[in-house]
């Protein structure tokens, strides 16, 4: 187990080194190395006026991890991460653009995805893809596939 963790850290470090050598930042070419891809969108937007710009904050194992891309609620927004093989708690939190304030604000809990979490088993050599379809009422369906 200890050796496994060390190996994972080594691989992770190499990955970081590789990323940083390319102009000091991660670029899309690394995307294939992620083993967790979460895609979220609203499936029942029927009026463009209600189709707001939004993104999701994503936490993994109760730690802030990052956010999805930004897009309209009806568009697919993607979060990618490379996690150690394990069972992970993934939580999402929806933020929408308040154009009047000029900033994104956290959506009222009433309309947050329900449930707002999923446990994902990350397996060695496989990519877990989670698709979250939400409605304007917050009800959500989580689908997990592994490749």
């Amino acid at each position, binding site marked *: 187990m200890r050796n496994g963790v060390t190996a994972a850290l080594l691989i992770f470090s190499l*990955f970081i080194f590789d990323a940083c050598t390319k102009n000091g930042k991660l*670029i899309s070419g690394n995307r294939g190395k992620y083993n967790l891809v979460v895609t979220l969108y609203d499936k029942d937007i029927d009026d463009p006026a209600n189709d707001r710009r939004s*993104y999701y904050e994503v936490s993994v194992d109760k730690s802030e991890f990052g956010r999805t891309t*930004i897009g309209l609620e009806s568009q697919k927004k993607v979060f990618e991460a490379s996690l150690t093989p394990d069972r992970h708690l993934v939580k999402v939190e929806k933020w929408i653009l308040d154009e009047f304030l000029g*900033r*994104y604000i956290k959506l009222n809990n009433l309309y947050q995805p329900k449930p707002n979490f999923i446990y994902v088993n990350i397996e060695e050599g496989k990519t877990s893809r989670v698709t979250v379809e939400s409605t304007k009422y917050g009800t959500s369906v989580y689908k997990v596939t592994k490749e």
Partner: protein
Amino acid sequence: MFTVKKSILFVSALIMAVSCGKIQSNEEIEPNNTVSTATIVETGKEYTGFLDTENDIDNYLLKIPEDQVIRIELSGVKGINHAIQVRGIVDGSLRAIKTVDDNRKSSPEEIANLFLNPGDYIIVVTHGIRDVKKGNSENSYTLRITARSPFNEESEPNDLPEYGNIIGNGESIAGYFSPSRNMLNENSQWPYREEDWFSADIVAGDDAPVTVDLFLKGVGGVDSILSLYSPEMKELAVSDNTSAGGAESITGFGIKSTGRYYILVTSKSFQYNHREPYELSMNLNLHDSGSELEPNNGFDNAGRITGNSVSGRINQPGDQDFFFYNENPGSNIRIRLQNDPGLDGVVTVFGSGRVKLLEANNSGSGNDEIIPAFSVKDGVFIRVSSVQPSVSEMPYRLIVEQIIIDGKHEKEPNNSIKEANTLKDEISGFTSSKNDRDYFLIKPEARARYRINASAPKNGTVRLSTTDQMGYIIKTKTLSNGETISINELFDKKGYLIIETVTPDFENQYNINISGAE
């Protein structure tokens, strides 16, 4: 007893003789409607008369043996708008040299200081022009003429520039806001305004400019105006800053060509004061290159800053001073405006294309305004102005100092998305004003996560925000007093960092660096 009676009779006779003689000599002698029938008058005496009919004109002949300044006082006559006209021989013919008419009924007329050369003068008491002329045979007027030797004062009439009294460097000259109206003033812009003109012969050149200081001591009840005109009668400067009784001044006005310049002293709304003289004084000084040279109220006459500083003054409400600085193109400069305790100054920087770039208006009266760092490309215009209209002259000192900044530094202005500086790895910047917002563009080739490290200025507080592609804020962190933070952010091909000033620190800069994040 007989002796006593004889004495009484003698005294009585003497009194009667004196008093009867005085009455006879102090009344107008009608008809005196023409110059040839004018009643002879003397200074130091009073004369009574009547404007009996609507056509009545009373002429008085005054003989002046030597240069004298006379005061003419005409008492009011109930219901009558009367006027005084003084006529003298001008170019061989008898002409009006001063007309005094306040355009009011029943009010007195007066002129405080009419300068007369030796000669004969006709003083005409007649009806004013404004009201319907009518006679009054019941109420007399009293005409009093007093004379004195001239002292260092204006020589009325000096109602036109060509008759301006010469004032020299370091000299003072007195005058009166009298009479209230000059009916001979046919200037369409200021009809009937009483104007006192002075002139000064000034020697100057482009390479040897001089500054002129004019001070006008105010008098009670008069809101005065002081103006300076070029030899071509172009208005150069006006001082109209104070209300009635206040002084006016034009100071530090730059003159670059030799010629006769003109000074106008006048009042608003025909205000007058026949008793209290004003005092006009003038001083000329060689221009110090470390001082502003008025006029410098626009880009075209901006003063060039050749050293590290220039001193100047906000002379009147609305005054603004322009300077041009181009000493070390490409260098970074810090601009500091040291305000007089009563001055709440504003310093504004314009590019050589005269586009406003930066403005510092952060502190109150008496405190410095600072633009901490600015890159001079091909010269900048610097404007100094005042937040509030200054009622008196407010001095300031504008200091421009070169600064050396290590590493990459923001290029102001970057106060909007359109002006954002591109950020690739690291950058530093200043909180240039209390509401400063600095935008930085991060533009990866594709979606990328960055680790952003930022440190606050040593004595300031800033808000660091990340934005989406359109500039909408995603995340905000506040950091103070040298504090360092790190945040991760995902940039999808494009995004911005915004540094907002919460508490400015004009001396110390903030720093940002970005690197790829896992």
